């Protein structure tokens, strides 16, 4: 295939318009089918028994009483999920997380599961399973866990990335380092240095739809899984490997998704549901309760970050350094590493050094959460940048503009940037009316920048042209934010037809080649590239059919505005043939017309945003209200601007929740205290102002339309923007997220008491 992905600077007819999404009517009328809406004849109810202990050896599990209960069709433990991971440590961790093998590693860790004819019997059966635990000392705080006296979560872990292999095991699994130049030299050149430590608490993605699936394993080794996921092909791979199935015999269908934000990129309950179905010989539906979602799925890392930044009087940053400790849950991860890569990505720095430490704790396995690891690093760095600008006496925006990365800047994490949007977003913010809006008593303003890498990856699409000229587009990236609308626009654009004639669906794993999951803000970026490629392949066939009809060489046929046109004066008597006409005749000209594409979408353009936030703080209660919020972000090209704005607003809304009230609260016993939406406080509608957005379009040179991913960057600046605003409102630097009312009031009291 000769697909040229380079940006071409074309004029658009469909791309950039705002039609209604194809999944919209079903969603607002309640017809859309989510994970729990699928049912099969004879299906059983699956339920999981979870450890009440943060850290405990599982000495024995007696399932005999549960098995004898009438209506129970299968009871499983780790024995029913034998280790088939063949030395793959990451897969072993996934397996152990799905069903604890030797130790329960957090409150909520699965230890057994049942399938029964109804929910009541399943619940009763769980109560009849006898688990003998030997409770071990636990640790849930990231700093305490990194301490050498902390209880060891896994005595086989020796810190990687140190110059010498350590003699003793530790909860720190890995050290990573990034940067260039000489920070010691840089700090020596600085007139001002800000050095601070920050903490962020653990948050959950907070998707409204809990994890849900229906699994059906047949006696012949084939299986079906209907599931709410961000990546059904990845779920297929993981489930097939863990269950010992052939991947192509496990057909995975993704449902509509009620939010994922990275939390639905990992399997949890699905292998358990498949194992239950295999043992029971019947389909099993498994739906997590909200309590289970909080205790055993999701969350992002809790962090502890030290930042030091130095600058000259003229505002040039001379050195920047950060040490980042991120919690991983009980299994190794690379969360601090990502934080260390993103921390200073917005800036042009001569001397920069970041060090990340991955820390095991007795909490659920850390999962990706929208630009994973970047918001916490940005909170620490952008807070320090703000303080440094203040110390120098420079405007916070001007200070950032002076130090912003540009095309050709060597990023702090290694690569050299192409055309990027950090400078333009800052300039846009500088001139935004929000910056001039008046502030009243107890109100404050803050701003902050954010970066995300974006990702491309393996992608496959099919475009089929019906005999009536309508087009169906089958994609393999789950639609989490309106991508079916965006991809339909792209197909319409390329074919030169109206959006209303294109219908996009998310195909199941047996109908399309492998696709990476919808993560890394890749859905629209990569699938639009594959859609363009597939459409161009279909156009080639459309031109051939027209050439055949006219009996002229195909080289003389061009495709324009939905028509085949015979090029040249000698064909003056040939009227253009529309796509509809060619499609209608296809049965006689060679059969169905389709375009296929499989590719690796390289060249995902990096993404930058700058946010402005105004808050009002009640100094007597510490209560904070966000009163004004503006997002400025580079989209490369906004395919469907409404859904781009939706991504900007959604990221900001989640960031506001994280900044102000959301946190995992653990008791001294290591148990999660607030596993529900009542006490895990995500913002409700009335907590938020209308979030204003401004889309910038700095084309990505590696995409035909200039598209960049837009989904994740918007959650990177809010923690810092809000912290800067609150600090500005109350006159005290806030260093601990979330800035809940008790934390703000305590900080104010500490300041008042000197």
């Amino acid at each position: 295939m000769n697909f040229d992905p380079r940006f071409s600077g074309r004029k658009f007819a469909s791309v950039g318009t705002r039609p209604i999404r194809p999944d919209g009517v079903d969603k607002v009328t309640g017809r859309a089918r989510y994970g729990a809406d699928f049912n099969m004849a004879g299906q059983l109810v699956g339920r999981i028994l979870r450890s009440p202990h943060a850290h405990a050896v599982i000495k024995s599990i007696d399932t005999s009483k549960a098995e004898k209960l009438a209506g129970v069709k299968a009871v499983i433990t780790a024995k029913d999920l034998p280790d088939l991971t063949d030395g793959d440590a990451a897969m072993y961790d996934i397996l152990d997380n799905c069903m604890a093998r030797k130790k329960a590693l957090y409150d909520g860790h699965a230890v057994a599961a049942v399938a029964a004819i109804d929910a009541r019997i399943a619940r009763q059966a769980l109560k009849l399973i006898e688990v003998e635990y030997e409770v071990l000392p636990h640790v849930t705080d990231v700093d305490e866990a990194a301490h050498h006296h902390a209880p060891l979560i896994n005595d086989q872990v020796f810190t990687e990335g140190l110059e010498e292999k350590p003699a003793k095991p530790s909860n720190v699994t890995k050290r990573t380092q990034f940067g260039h130049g000489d920070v010691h030299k840089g700090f020596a050149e600085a007139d001002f240095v800000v050095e601070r430590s920050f903490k962020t608490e653990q948050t959950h993605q907070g998707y409204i739809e809990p994890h849900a699936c229906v699994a059906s394993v047949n006696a012949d080794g084939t299986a079906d899984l209907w599931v709410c996921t961000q990546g059904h092909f990845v779920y297929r791979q993981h489930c097939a490997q863990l269950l010992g199935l052939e991947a192509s015999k496990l057909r995975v269908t993704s449902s509509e998704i009620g939010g994922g934000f990275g939390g639905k990129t990992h399997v949890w309950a699905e292998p358990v549901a498949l194992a239950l179905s295999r043992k029971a010989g019947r389909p099993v539906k498994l739906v997590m309760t909200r309590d289970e979602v909080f205790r055993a799925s999701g969350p992002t890392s809790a962090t502890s970050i030290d930042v030091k930044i130095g600058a000259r009087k003229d505002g040039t940053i001379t050195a920047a350094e950060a040490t980042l400790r991120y919690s991983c849950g009980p299994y190794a991860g690379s969360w601090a590493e990502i934080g260390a890569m993103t921390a200073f990505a917005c800036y042009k720095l001569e001397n920069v050094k970041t060090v990340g430490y991955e820390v095991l704790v007795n909490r659920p396995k850390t999962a990706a959460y929208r630009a994973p690891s970047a918001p916490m690093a940005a909170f620490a760095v952008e807070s320090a940048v703000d303080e440094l600008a203040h110390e120098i006496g420079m405007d916070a925006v001007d200070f950032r503009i002076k130090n912003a990365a540009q095309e050709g800047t060597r990023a702090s994490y290694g690569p050299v940037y192409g055309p990027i949007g950090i400078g333009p977003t800052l300039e846009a913010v500088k001139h935004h009316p929000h910056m001039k809006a008046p502030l009243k008593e107890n109100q404050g303003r803050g701003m902050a920048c954010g970066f995300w890498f974006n990702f491309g990856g393996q992608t496959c699409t099919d475009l089929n042209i019906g005999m009536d000229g309508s087009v169906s587009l089958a994609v393999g990236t789950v639609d989490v934010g309106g991508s079916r609308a965006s991809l339909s626009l792209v197909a319409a654009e390329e074919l030169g037809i109206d959006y209303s004639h294109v219908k996009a669906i998310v195909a199941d794993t047996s109908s399309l080649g492998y696709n990476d999951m919808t993560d890394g803000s890749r859905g629209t970026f990569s699938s639009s590239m594959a859609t363009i490629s597939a459409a161009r392949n279909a156009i080639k066939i459309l031109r051939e059919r027209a050439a055949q009809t006219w009996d002229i060489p195909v080289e003389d046929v061009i495709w324009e505005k939905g028509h085949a046109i015979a090029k040249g004066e000698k064909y003056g008597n040939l009227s253009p043939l529309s796509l509809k006409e060619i499609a209608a005749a296809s049965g006689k000209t060679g059969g169905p017309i389709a375009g296929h594409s499989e590719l690796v979408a390289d060249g995902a353009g990096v993404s930058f945003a700058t946010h402005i936030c105004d808050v009002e703080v009640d100094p007597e209660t510490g209560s904070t209200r966000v009163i004004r919020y503006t997002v400025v972000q580079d989209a490369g090209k906004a395919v469907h601007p409404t859904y781009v704005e939706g991504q900007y607003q959604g990221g900001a809304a989640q960031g506001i929740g994280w900044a102000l009230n959301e946190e995992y609260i653990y008791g001294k016993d290591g148990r999660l205290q607030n596993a529900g939406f009542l006490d895990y406080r995500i913002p409700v509608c009335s907590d938020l102002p209308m979030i204003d957005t401004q889309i910038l379009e700095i084309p990505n040179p590696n995409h035909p339309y200039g598209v960049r991913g837009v989904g994740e960057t918007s959650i990177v600046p809010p923690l810092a923007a809000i912290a800067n605003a609150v600090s500005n409102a109350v006159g005290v630097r806030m260093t601990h997220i979330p800035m809940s009312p008790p934390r703000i009031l305590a900080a104010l009291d500490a300041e008042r008491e000197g």
Partner: protein
Amino acid sequence: MRYIRPLSIEDAVGELAKAVGPAAILAGGSDLLVRMKGGFVEPELIVDIKRIGGLGDVTETAEGFRIGAAVPCAVLGENKALKKAWPGVVEAANLIGSKQVQGRCTITGNLCNASPAADSVPALVAAGAKAVVAGPSGKRTIAVESVPTGPGRTSLAKGEIIEAILLDKRPAHAGDAYLRFIPRTEMDIAVVSAGVNLTLDDHGAIKTARVALGAAAPTVLLVEEAGQVLVGSKLDQATLDRLAKICSGACRPIDDKRGTIEFRRKVAGVLARRVAAIAYKRAGGK
């Protein structure tokens, strides 16, 4: 599980009195159903009281108002006379849960759920509301503050049902108000709360005052000393500061997921001050 829907209070009382296993009363169900779904309670008998005559009515009598046990909080918000007489009680009832929940939940249920953070209870205690209790040995009328005895526990005996809440007729120059602290704007549970009910004399000085705090102790607190400090004043700054100090001091809060002891103490005083000012203004004070 057995579900029944008796038509008389006597039948309901009789069924509850003879129940062998765990039994529950269902009015709006906004607490009961959540607890059942969460697996916290598994009642063998559920007595739905919504069909019992009179329990769904708000009646204005010579003595004041009688609010049936099955009246949803949203209905209170639509009752103009009640809202005019007892705006604090009504605003507290209309803070519970969401709009949808308010269409089901009842102030009697809120009282009997016996949560120290119940929104309508501090307002009812400040208002001096009474509860009419029907039981196997007849009916009795008790002060609402004597109903909850601890988190999730009440003084009601087996077979007893609260059939109505009584609020007094209002004299001239009276006002009540309720405020709670939540980190969000709605759909939350009070971290700490305060209700104040005042009457003024002809000169605008406070004649009687009742102050109640929520989520500040195992049960809603009636802070009599706080009421006393208000009496005779026109709510000057010094009085407000003393009120705040007394309320902070009266708290016996806990540290939990919703707030710290220190935070609750401080904010209890702040809220008492703010809510007293609202009640004073409503009573016509200047």
